[in-house]
């Protein structure tokens, strides 16, 4: 799978709720980081000292999410919202054969099936991929959610 394919595939796996395959795209010590906004102009830039929406430095953070989704005991996750990711404008910012950086834009249409209300979360991705055992894996996914006043559920599958 090429790096661009991986970015597109990741989004498809989330929409298709193929959680285990989605987790497998990430390295074990991956970083998943969605900053929060300080004000109208600036997102936070230091997750150790400033608030984020989500900040994990291990794939365990993502598998916790998957466990919660599957638990059936989270009202926000059961029934699960339907999502449709649109990932566009993929650009390779760097690629040396072992590591690469892909920038893109995303929009996720989310239907809350409990209330039949839909909303859209949108923003920009920056994927840092590494070659592990000859396969590209996600070492870091940076998600800049451009929505500020969040309209509904925000989880790893809706951004």
């Amino acid at each position, binding site marked *: 799978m090429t790096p661009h394919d991986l970015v597109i595939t990741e989004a498809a796996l989330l929409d298709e709720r193929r959680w285990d395959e989605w987790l497998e795209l990430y390295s074990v010590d991956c970083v998943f980081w969605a900053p929060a906004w300080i004000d109208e102009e600036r997102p936070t830039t230091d997750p150790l000292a400033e608030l984020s929406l989500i900040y994990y430095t291990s794939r365990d953070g993502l598998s916790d*999410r998957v466990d919660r989704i599957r638990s059936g005991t989270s009202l*926000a996750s059961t029934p699960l919202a339907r999502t449709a990711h649109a990932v566009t404008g993929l650009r390779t910012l760097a690629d040396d054969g072992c590591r690469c950086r892909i920038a893109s834009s995303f929009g996720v249409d989310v239907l809350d099936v409990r209330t039949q209300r839909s909303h859209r979360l949108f923003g920009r991705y920056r994927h840092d991929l590494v070659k592990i055992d000859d396969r590209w894996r996600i070492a870091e996914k940076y998600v800049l959610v451009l929505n500020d006043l969040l309209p509904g559920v925000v989880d790893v599958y809706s951004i």
Partner: protein
Amino acid sequence: MIDPAALISDTADGPFRVDRSLFTDPAIFDLEMRHIFERSWVFLGMESQVAKPGDMLTTWLGRQPVLVTRNVDGKLSALLNSCRHKGARLVQTEHAHASLIVCPYHAWTYALDGQLRGIKDRASGCYAKSFADESHDLLALAQVDSYRGMIFGTLDPDERPLSEHLGETRPLIDLIMDQGEHGMELVPGRTAYMFDGNWKLQVENGMDPYHLTSTHGSFIHIVAQRTAAVTAMAAIKSRDFRETVTANGGAFGFEHGHGAVWIDNHTPEQKPINLTIDALRDRVGIARAQWMLNFRNLVLFPNVQLADSESLLLRVIRPRSVDRTEMRLYCLAPIGEPAAARTMRLRQHEDFFNASGLATPDDSAMYEECQIGFAAAGDCLQGYDRGIGATTRTPDEAAISLGIRPCENVSGPFKIQSELQYRPFYREWRRRMSEGLSRDSTAAAEAAE
């Protein structure tokens, strides 16, 4: 004709019932905006957000846009954020800094205290002579005051002083604001989200111990799993509710509508302040340091909450309509706390309180389901009955230890999961709504004469 007193059924040592129209009737919502938000002390922001002369912040008092400024002399002004000319909002961003307030529409200019300083092309405007006799200063809130860095404002010149309004909750606010040797600050970054439900659903949930083991069952399970498997996520030490349910806890009801709940903390290592516990004990004493470690949720009437539990949260409720509410969340932290403590605090806040976390979304979903369920006809009264059988009206051991005099309290095993703490809110709601309606009807009668 709405009769607030008839909507609350309040019997001493007996059932306490609230009519669900409080959550569903748009007419009641409008009256709440008018008689509660546009009269009570409403939280406007932190002093640290407007620290230097020229600093400004924008916020809401009910439906009304408000501008808080720090004047050159260091005093705060709380103004209606609306130009006296055509009503345009004067400051459009959450924060601003300037020496004057200039309307972008026709450049009417005001000082930081709201006094008119200039009208563009006034001399050539051929104004009527009487124009100069009118005040064109920005309208100000009747009172603005702060306690321990929290700024409150009211539109009512006759509202009791802030210190009286906060009353016996002040030692609980102190327990938060004294955690930092050098003071407290808002961590950069705030989050905001909406839910389709009445604002009072959040008021209640902010002091609801009863929903933890059911609504947040998935959170409890995830934390337990992290601990058992010693995953990397165990390092953030999110609160393990399995310890909570075997602890002691209680609830306080305060005069003027405030409520609080507390739970003993048997896992102090879960709290960021525990990293500097020796210094904390030296500074505030062992008893107060223990109370700082304990879990406390404080809900100030009508719309601001301080949760010192899974991280330290300042949460502001902004009602948008009877079934739509906007939430704004901030993380409070001691200035200069160790980096490891700050990081832990942030991860815990993100894990539990964030709309993107593992707990708050389940609360929001629950509020929405309540709002939907409220439409069911039939028994329209809902009860707040837990803990009533053990409620006392003299300060209990916890209150004495805290140095507070609540009007009622209950304490014992966590499993009591009291509902007494909601009652002061609805009593104050009833008082303000009844007085407000009565005032309006007197005014209407006088006007008719």
